[in-house]
């Protein structure tokens, strides 16, 4: 069962990732990325990380991808034009990617003592996770909440109209509406 589920969702993952690269429209890429993230959530569940599986769907496939889809629609992003790309990317980039992938794969295949995952192994409960998170790692957790607050403020400051006269125009548009 574990093997079958792994094969199905690993295939979904890779197919989604490759499709994301092949699609030329940003919305199609965003949708394939959602496929990748949802299948990754299933893989997390297979590895016994139930909380992360839920968080992956809520945070990644939900919040972040909605943000992406929103921006694609807001900016009316059209089909991307295929250009040749930079010379450095084709000369150095792609060989480097192949070398890195080959290197990582060789190292992984030579690791001794890697176990196996099966259905009978237990699930890390959310309680277990939260005990560590709220006792040992309380300070980093709180600092991250401050980080998110700062990021939201920064996003609002960046995305609003920057100049004074544009700000005066914005309320006028609102009043013209019935």
């Amino acid at each position, binding site marked *: *069962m*574990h093997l*079958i589920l792994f094969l199905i969702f*690993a295939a979904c*993952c*890779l197919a989604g*990732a490759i499709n*994301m690269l092949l699609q030329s429209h*940003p919305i199609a890429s965003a949708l394939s*990325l959602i496929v*990748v993230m949802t299948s*990754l959530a299933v*893989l*997390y569940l*297979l*590895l016994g*990380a139930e*909380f*992360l599986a839920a968080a*992956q769907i809520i*945070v*990644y496939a939900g919040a*972040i991808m909605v943000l*992406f889809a929103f*921006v694609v629609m*807001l*900016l009316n*992003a059209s089909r*991307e034009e*295929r*250009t040749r*790309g930079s010379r450095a990317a084709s000369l150095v980039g*792609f060989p480097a*990617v192949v070398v*890195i*992938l080959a290197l*990582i794969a060789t190292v*992984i*295949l030579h690791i001794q003592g*890697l*176990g*196996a*995952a*099966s259905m009978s*192994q237990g699930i*890390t409960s959310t309680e*277990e*996770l939260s005990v*560590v*998170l709220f006792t040992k*790692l309380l300070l*980093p957790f709180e600092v*991250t909440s401050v*980080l*998110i607050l700062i*990021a939201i403020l920064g*996003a609002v400051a*960046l*995305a609003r109209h*920057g100049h004074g006269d544009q700000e005066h125009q914005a309320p006028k548009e609102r009043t013209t509406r019935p």
Partner: protein
Amino acid sequence: MNLFAQEVPLSWYLLLSAALFSLGVVGFLIKRNLITIFMSIELMLNGVNLSFVTFAHQWHQVKGQIFVFFVMMVAAAEAAVGLAIIIAIFRVRATLAVDRIDRMKL
């Protein structure tokens, strides 16, 4: 051989995560749209997350999973700020093609 009771070696999960990361790098290099390039970065983050969860499973530690949790939170913050920057760039340049956004100054 019973297909239903079979185990999956953890190295397969690690190979999948390496493949996802490399696909993210390739996407970063070949995509010509600012938003899609940003999506490739998210793909790389997801690939790394998978290998964190795999090692957390291997060593029976929750710390790996907590690391993934923090990565997710930072990715959410990063996505918000990055997309705001993309909106700001689009206001000034009126394009998302990276070939035409190649100067710091206007």
